[in-house]
């Protein structure tokens, strides 16, 4: 049974590459049961959308 540390890393990797079936199942199962990791996963997705909005928006300037 994999713990939150491993799952949080899988969540991040899943945003960049296709995970193997085993990792994918482990991640999904864990997310069904763990609200902390579910929050983490949801917020990581949001960060990607924020980054796109940030640099080209009329609000922020690109990071230095």
């Amino acid at each position, binding site marked *: 049974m994999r713990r939150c*540390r491993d799952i949080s890393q899988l969540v991040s*990797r899943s945003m960049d590459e296709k995970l193997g079936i085993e990792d994918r199942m482990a991640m999904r199962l864990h997310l069904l049961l763990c609200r*902390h990791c579910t929050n983490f996963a949801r917020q990581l997705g949001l960060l990607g959308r924020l980054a796109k909005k940030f*640099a080209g928006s*009329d609000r922020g300037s*690109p990071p230095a």
Partner: protein
Amino acid sequence: MPDAIGVDAAASEDALDNPRFLPQLRSQMLKLALLQLNDPEAAEDAVQEAFVGALRNRASFARGAAFRTWVFAILRNKIADALRARYRRREREIAAPVDGDAEADDDRFNPAGEWRPSHRPSRWSDPAGMTEDAQFWRVFEACLGRLSGRTARVFMMREYIGLEIAEICAALEMTASSVSVTLFRARAGLRDCLESQWFKG
């Protein structure tokens, strides 16, 4: 505060008529291009081409804000093109230090690998509405600034420019696992910072 000028200029209806708007926009674009390409000449070229491309359609922009969004979208493509060309040529550019595996001593987790109570990601309220708040973007920028330059650069290459892992590996001479570790560090660090500075601040 580097974004204060941009906000003012873009908020005005006729920002394009403001003589300060374009020079300021240009310097912000250059900052982004330089961060991504790490090559002043290539960065100048990308910004120049983005400007030429966008100004060609200048008539269709009623407001400076729309122009700004458009010119940054073009710039993003130019940067991606330049990085991909580099990838194809396998240009050996910067000898980059390899990031170690920081996850072994990630203090977000206890030795059993569970979230420590103080680091548990909590639920965020109204994550959609905050993007309308200028103060939120200042916090976001400050949180990005807390990451190491390299970590922030990899994050923006992936999330803003939209490069694949293999392309980032080639551009920065990093291994795939090192890029993954860096992305995890960037995302988790940004998340922590936003949670403490915005959602609990």
